[in-house]
């Protein structure tokens, strides 16, 4: 009895399978087709550059050149401006409202002499002095706006007062400066 039922079920299953094989395939949605197609294509392409290697290399080189050019331009502008400031402050072309002030110090055996003060931010490299033909006097001419300026000479790295100038009365560091008063004329 049970054998007969099992045979009937098997026969029914086989009949359904045979019918499915003969039926038309079920139509698939368009989006599903597109996804399947894309997936298939992706499998086919092992590696794809969005930018070709040569183009990428050329672009990187162009970026480097552009960056270098910009950096050069900015630095060049800065140097030109500071050079202009120094030329103006050395009296070559004194800016309007500024007066040429000559500073001089005797340092016969010195190798390098410069002047520092309120007018150049106390920068020892800012205003080098020039040795005159007498071989002992160093001088520089600086364009200064009217005002009161504390200053000192830097003789071979050591600070030195201007013995011919007034002494500053208000030094914050216990080392008196020389003082120059500019303006009024």
């Amino acid at each position: 009895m049970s054998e007969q039922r099992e045979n009937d079920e098997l026969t029914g299953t086989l009949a359904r399978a045979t019918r499915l094989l003969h039926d038309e395939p079920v139509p698939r949605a368009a989006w599903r087709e597109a996804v399947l197609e894309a997936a298939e294509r992706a499998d086919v392409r092992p590696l794809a550059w969005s930018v070709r290697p040569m183009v990428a290399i050329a672009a990187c080189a162009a970026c480097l050149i552009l960056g270098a050019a910009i950096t050069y331009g900015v630095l060049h502008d800065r140097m030109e401006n500071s050079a202009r400031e120094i030329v103006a402050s050395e009296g070559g072309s004194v800016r309007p409202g500024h007066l040429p002030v000559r500073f001089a110090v005797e340092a016969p055996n010195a190798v390098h002499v410069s002047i520092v003060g309120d007018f150049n931010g106390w920068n020892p490299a800012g205003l080098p002095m020039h040795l005159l033909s007498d071989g002992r006097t160093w001088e520089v001419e600086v364009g200064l706006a009217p005002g009161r300026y504390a200053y000192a000479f830097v003789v071979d790295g050591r600070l030195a007062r201007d013995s011919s100038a007034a002494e500053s009365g208000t030094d914050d560091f216990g080392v008196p400066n020389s003082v120059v008063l500019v303006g009024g004329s």
Partner: protein
Amino acid sequence: MRCSVRSACGALLALGVFSAAARVAVAQAPAEPALPARLGAPAHSAIVAIMDSARAAGLPTTPLAAKAAEGVLKGADDARIVEAVRSLAKALGDARAALGPAADASVLDAGASALRAGVTPAALHSLGEAGAAPSGPTALATALVTLVDFVAKGVPPALASQSIEQLLRLGAPESRFETLRNEVEADIRDGQSPEAAVTSRVRTNVQQLGAPGVPHPPSSPPSVPESTR
């Protein structure tokens, strides 16, 4: 391939525009005074904070950076440098309060020097009012410089500020203050006391400025005192 080249060109163009804009921004930014590298990190931070506060209050920061550089050059320790910068910033702020928002950097600098020399804020305020017109800010800066010079020579700050204020109220031009400095310097060299020299020279100048009919005396000799270039 064509698409890739177009993308690369687009990226380069964008980079170029960005860089050009950055360059313009860098070029137009005001040159910020640099602090000396020798400063320790805590002192550097403290001074940067002081300078930021000064900038926010509309005060010039260049003298502050210069003060720090001066301290470094003179081998002062960091604490002393910070204190000096703070003191100068306070003087500049006090000068701003006394002289008003119209005072430019040179006037503020001279005003701060006057305060540090012992001139009171009230006296500086009066000087600012007296110098507002008709002499103008340049004469005020020169007048304050002259005032500081007198105090440095030993003239009491009250007398020096009253004398300078008198001349400013009479519209003394900038050149008058330089002449006055030279005259006082010469008188002191000749043996007069700084106080007496200022008093007599200012009286003469006031008479000249206040009485237009009075002929001016011959100008001071061309020799320039050593401290005045």
